[in-house]
């Protein structure tokens, strides 16, 4: 694939590589914290949006807020672009470098600084992985709620940059709803503390603005997150249906009945077959659609809630009901769903879209997506968070066939335009990055994009942070 343009590298900066690297080495203490050898730079040339790659000028891995501050101040003075990086798991190309940019990675700043059960907060360095936060607070009976599928690898810094979600955000919200404070290093090197352990911050909600700003306002080095007491228990039920419409109507009625499960995951027939072949989870391979609905509480509460849900499912022609009876069964039900992307990768290459739609339009959108992808001669499998309408159609293609690759990209763009057309959005949890940058005009007017770009320049007047992302490259500067 080669459809997405990158800003042309500045030859003057490229020519100064040796001098820039030498200066970086003076600014950070650890001898191995600056990487400039092309072979060692290779792991940093892309993220999880692997169709695009650019080798950066250098990579620097600071160990403290102070080092990040010195590095950013120096690079800003020299007019060098900066690409912030967590673990590099962005599916939207949010961390893909530029040839004339320095990658500033926060992965070495991964310590837990304080856990405070009475306040229900934890203060951590932002390079910590998402799962490591939950692991660190588990002993006290707590967890960190946002749970992106990549939670084993992805960093909190990246989660904050993209305002990441996960399967359980129907009940617990996404990153922005679980983030109370950040230490933010601005491009001029100044360090600001926004929010903290209190439930709100004075002044404008800058924590809310920074969350989801895709690394364009500053680099977050520390954060205060909300931690929650673990529920007494949680159990899923697997429900299979003869049609996607029936499954969609069942979701609507569950929510209409005043039940808010922690997760409602939807899989269509192609996704069920792919996952079953891989995970042997006992999924009904003949079903047109399947839901995994998970509820929390005491055993009695779970029983009561699941029986309400099953009664609703029966009214919508459910064909299989599989209630988990043990931790092993629970793990098995989830195993197929959680391995969906990996399992799909075994049968074909794919691109994963991330649009959100109003859930009421689900049956119609599923049909039209199928038609779009078929129109390009490709196949699609659907796995998504049904409770909140965040779709993840996987468009299957052969990466070695340039024609198929171009068609997959085009089909993806058509699907995202469809999401916007029915009242949804381009991206529910992955971010815009470079992937959806050129589609932004389908969701925003020119004036809206200019306002957002002007907000960005309040923090970073010269647009040195993560350039070439989010905003169309030809966006006029006049605010």
């Amino acid at each position, binding site marked *: 694939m080669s459809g997405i343009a990158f800003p042309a590298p500045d030859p003057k900066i490229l020519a100064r590589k040796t001098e820039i690297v030498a200066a970086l080495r003076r600014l950070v203490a650890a001898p191995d914290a600056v990487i400039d050898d092309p072979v060692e730079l290779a792991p940093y040339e892309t993220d999880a949006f692997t169709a695009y790659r650019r080798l950066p000028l250098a990579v620097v891995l600071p160990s403290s807020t102070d080092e990040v501050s010195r590095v950013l101040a120096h690079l800003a003075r020299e007019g060098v672009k900066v690409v912030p990086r967590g673990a590099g798991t962005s599916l939207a190309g949010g961390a893909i470098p530029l040839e004339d940019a320095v990658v500033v990675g926060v992965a070495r700043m991964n310590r837990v600084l304080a856990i405070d059960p009475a306040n229900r907060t934890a203060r951590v360095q932002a390079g910590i992985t998402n799962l490591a936060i939950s692991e660190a607070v588990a002993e006290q009976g707590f967890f960190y709620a946002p749970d992106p599928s990549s939670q084993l690898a992805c960093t909190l810094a990246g989660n904050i940059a993209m305002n990441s979600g996960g399967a359980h955000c129907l009940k617990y919200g996404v990153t922005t709803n679980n983030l109370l404070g950040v230490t933010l290093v601005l491009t001029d090197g100044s360090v600001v503390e926004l929010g903290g352990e*209190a439930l*709100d911050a004075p002044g404008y909600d*800058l924590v809310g603005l920074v*969350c989801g700003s895709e690394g364009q306002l500053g680099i977050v080095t520390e954060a205060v997150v909300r931690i929650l007491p673990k529920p007494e228990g949680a159990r899923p039920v697997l429900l299979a249906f003869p049609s996607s419409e029936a499954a969609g109507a069942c979701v609507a009625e569950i929510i209409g009945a005043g039940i808010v499960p922690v997760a409602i995951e939807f899989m269509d027939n192609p996704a069920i077959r792919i996952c079953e072949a891989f995970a042997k989870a006992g999924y009904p391979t003949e079903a047109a659609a399947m839901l995994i609905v998970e509820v929390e509480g005491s055993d009695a509460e779970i029983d009561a809630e699941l029986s309400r849900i099953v009664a609703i499912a029966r009214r919508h022609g459910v064909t299989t009901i599989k209630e988990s009876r043990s931790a092993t069964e629970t793990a098995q039900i989830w195993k197929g769903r959680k391995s969906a992307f990996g399992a799909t990768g075994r049968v074909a290459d794919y691109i994963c879209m991330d649009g959100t739609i109003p859930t009421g339009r689900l049956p119609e959108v599923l049909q039209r997506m199928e038609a779009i992808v078929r129109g390009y001669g490709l196949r699609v499998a659907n796995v998504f968070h049904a409770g*909140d309408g965040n779709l993840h159609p996987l468009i299957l293609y052969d990466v070695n066939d340039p024609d198929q690759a171009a068609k997959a990209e085009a089909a993806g763009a058509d699907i995202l335009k469809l999401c916007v057309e029915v009242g949804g959005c*381009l991206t529910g949890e992955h971010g815009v990055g470079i992937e959806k940058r050129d589609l932004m005009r389908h969701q925003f007017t020119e004036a*809206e994009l200019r306002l957002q770009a002007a907000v960005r320049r*309040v923090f970073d007047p010269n647009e040195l942070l993560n350039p070439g992302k989010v905003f169309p490259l030809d966006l006029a500067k006049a605010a």
Partner: protein
Amino acid sequence: MRLEPTSEDEAASLVRTLARDRSPVRLEGGGTRRAIGRPIRTAATLSSRKLGGITLYAPAEMVIAARTGTPVAELEAALASKGQMLPFEPPDHRRLLGSEGEPTIGGIVAGNLSGPRRLAVGACRDAAIGLRFVDGRGEVQHSGGRVMKNVTGLDLVKLLCGSWGTLAFLTEVTFKVLPRPESELTLLFEDLPDDRANALLCAAMATPFGPSGAAHLPAGVGAARARTVLRLEGFSESIRYRADRLAAALAAYGRADRVEGEESRALWRAIRDVEPLAEPRERAVWRLSLPPKRGAEAVAAIRTERDCTVLYDWSGGLVWLATEEGDDAGCAVIRAVARKLGGHATLLRGSPELRLRIPPFHPPAERVRALETGLRRTFDPVGLFNPGLLEAGS
């Protein structure tokens, strides 16, 4: 002069005229919170009063949208008819502020105002998923939308929520909503001193039993005896079970009584609206936001220098504090204590003279102020909207 546009386009056109004439305006919804912030004087008021009406309600999607001039009561009635509610329990400050008028949903968003349930399910800014607004150039803009998960572009919804009408004129807001709980039950512990009560509230919030309200009313605040209260909401069988477990877990703090039905609802309404501190009228009322476990500690530190009456909400994270106005209504000590303990303080009620003498909103750090000033210029280059409301010269 009162400007009361009946459509978003008309509002935009009015703002363009005001911008051309460089004529600042006060932005207003129902006007019930006109007495919050620094007193300002403008030739005109731009009101959302005639921008009313629910524009979208999809109960099965748990989403509702309304123009900002819609009365909060109208929105809540529409939701109640389908067994739903705004999760964050918007407060009504008319008794506290001695004001009249009809609180609007735009006013709630402008102040990011949230009641007791904020502790459990998030604030107004967490429920708000979409906004339409007119910026200071008179351009109609939107951020977010009608779907719960949306990370497309900068999240201006959060930025505008709680900006007190200093960045834009809000025209329409979309919320995610929740099912209205089938029933509620309040566990009531009596006679606890503030520090023990604060510890109880934090201990309760660290259990899996999910209180949706955690407040403490000291002796003499609304009743003779001190009351420490935890609210449980949900299906009846579930809240009875959780109440038993929670009472057992907190047995060290004493025996818990149970308050149900309308009595429970009335209690939480009073806490939400800060009713016990409404009288006497002439006292200043502060709103302190703190790390929850620091609530009682902050009050004890303030009391070494100043008499005050307090009410704790949000597990101790929200302290309402009434005190004599005097010279600075305790501003110096209250802000110093709040800052030291990781929080901040807003003067929510005070005479106009007091609100000119001391900054009602917590002053930001210098570098943060520079960012805020930059944002204000970006949204409103001429400085039309509520100039001076947040800070002198802002």
